[in-house]
């Protein structure tokens, strides 16, 4: 039987200008899931429901075997959460925060925290108000990772970071994620980060789950073709997400790519000139356009 780090079954929530209906999302233990979506897609709402901070109108939510939000206290002992809107106390030092966290979590690993302090190039005795945004993100991650959580939930952790700081954070995270026991839910609208870190991709848009698949097969299922339009070309092609025509040239995007797809295009009257794999960002945009 498959063990899940979290399971959301038929979860619905409604706000005045946003609704999420019947969301089903689950993450097998030890996997890294990238939650992708534009601003307002429902990523943060999903995460807040998972953290017990928002009560869904209906549906069932379980994290690490605990029903949420009822048993969130027990669950949160093994969940590490960091988000882009999370701040630390400005008047206190990072050391004060580490001591505070240590007093709550019996499993807090001081040696690991000291190691992360060096790797993240942070100063324990520095007041939080004096550190940069990038250092603050790293400080939050340190406080979360040193608890050795079984489930790590990161809500847009790289938002607002300069490219160098973002790369540093992503590299450290990639290193940390080598631990097979740790499950991670990573939300971002930055598809490069998701592509680097995730095993699974979940696309959200306007509160709906557009896709949930393992990254490799998902990336392999999308392709873009540049084709010559012939007299015999049909108006539509099976499996095409979009067909853009420009004179005698058509750009066809599919989400059902297989080695036989070229033959399928030829049968539909198109001569394939070029074939490209698509980046997650291109897939993301195509997927959103298709759903709207």
């Amino acid at each position, binding site marked *: 039987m498959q063990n899940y780090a979290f399971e959301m079954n038929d979860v619905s929530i409604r706000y005045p200008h946003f609704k999420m209906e019947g969301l089903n999302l689950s993450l097998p233990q030890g996997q890294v899931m990238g939650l992708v979506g534009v601003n307002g897609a429902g990523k943060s709402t999903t995460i*807040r429901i998972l*953290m*017990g*901070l*928002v*009560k869904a109108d209906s549906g069932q939510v379980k994290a690490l075997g605990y029903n949420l*939000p009822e048993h*969130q*206290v*027990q669950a*949160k*002992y093994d*969940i*590490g*959460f*960091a*988000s882009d*809107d*999370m*701040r*630390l*106390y*400005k*008047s*206190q030092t990072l050391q*004060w925060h580490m001591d*505070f*966290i240590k*007093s*709550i979590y019996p499993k807090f690993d001081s040696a690991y925290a000291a190691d992360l302090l060096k790797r993240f190039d942070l100063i324990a005795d520095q007041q939080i108000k004096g550190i940069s945004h990038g250092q603050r993100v790293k400080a*939050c991650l340190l406080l*979360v990772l040193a608890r050795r959580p079984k489930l790590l939930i990161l809500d847009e952790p790289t938002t607002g970071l300069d490219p160098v700081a973002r790369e540093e954070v992503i590299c450290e995270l990639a290193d940390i994620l080598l631990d097979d026991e740790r499950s991670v839910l990573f939300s971002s609208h930055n598809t490069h980060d998701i592509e680097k870190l995730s095993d699974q991709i979940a696309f959200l848009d306007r509160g709906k789950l557009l896709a949930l698949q393992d990254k490799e097969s998902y990336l392999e299922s999308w392709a873009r073709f540049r084709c010559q339009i012939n007299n015999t070309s049909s108006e539509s092609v099976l499996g095409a997400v979009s067909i853009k025509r420009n004179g005698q040239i058509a750009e066809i995007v599919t989400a059902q790519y297989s080695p036989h797809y070229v033959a399928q295009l030829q049968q539909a009257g198109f001569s394939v000139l070029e074939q490209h794999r698509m980046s997650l960002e291109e897939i993301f945009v195509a997927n959103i356009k298709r759903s709207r």
Partner: protein
Amino acid sequence: MTTLFKNTNMIKRLIIKDWELMKKGIAGYMAAGIVTIGIMGMATEITFNVGAILMITLLIVIGARSAVESIVNEKKDQTMPFILSLPISPQHYALAKLLSNLVLYIVPWLILVLGMLAVIISTPIYNGVIPLVVLVSVYILAAYCCYLATALLTYSEGFTIAVMIVTNLLINAFIIGIMRMPEINQTFKAATASWNSTSLTILAAELGFTCVILVLTAYLQQRKTNFL
């Protein structure tokens, strides 16, 4: 309720955390309070009145700072997600905030009020003024509970400040109102404090109102489903 008892350690940790964050400010206000009590202790009519005005201001400022800094700013400064990521439910977090704010306000409030009463008793100031001092002090405590409740239920700086302004404006009306009551103003210059049915009724009403506000706040907090 069972989970509450299981989580008392975490609630205690959050109360200690709030104390650590606010202790410097409270120490400063206590120092100012001691100076104010000293001014009142000079026992002339002018110094007592000046001291009384300073003390009212100080008690209001301590409460305002406590509610804004520890509750409203926790939302505004975005430290709330950090705390709510810890093993605590939003309901227990709110309870911890309610308790920490009450402790962090009531302890200095009690020390300063007892200090004032000690000055009145130990100097030639008429002891008959004691009921007025107690009633005004308890009014300030009740007003504090009003904006504490507003801060906890809305986390809104605007609403909290609005309630502060209204309750602080009403303090003048309250003082004038009770000073015009013959049962109270006729005993001002008495050598001993005179607690009659009027002053005791007002005191009971203030304390009852304060309790209702606190119980209602705790009840409404438990019913909230959306945090952050």
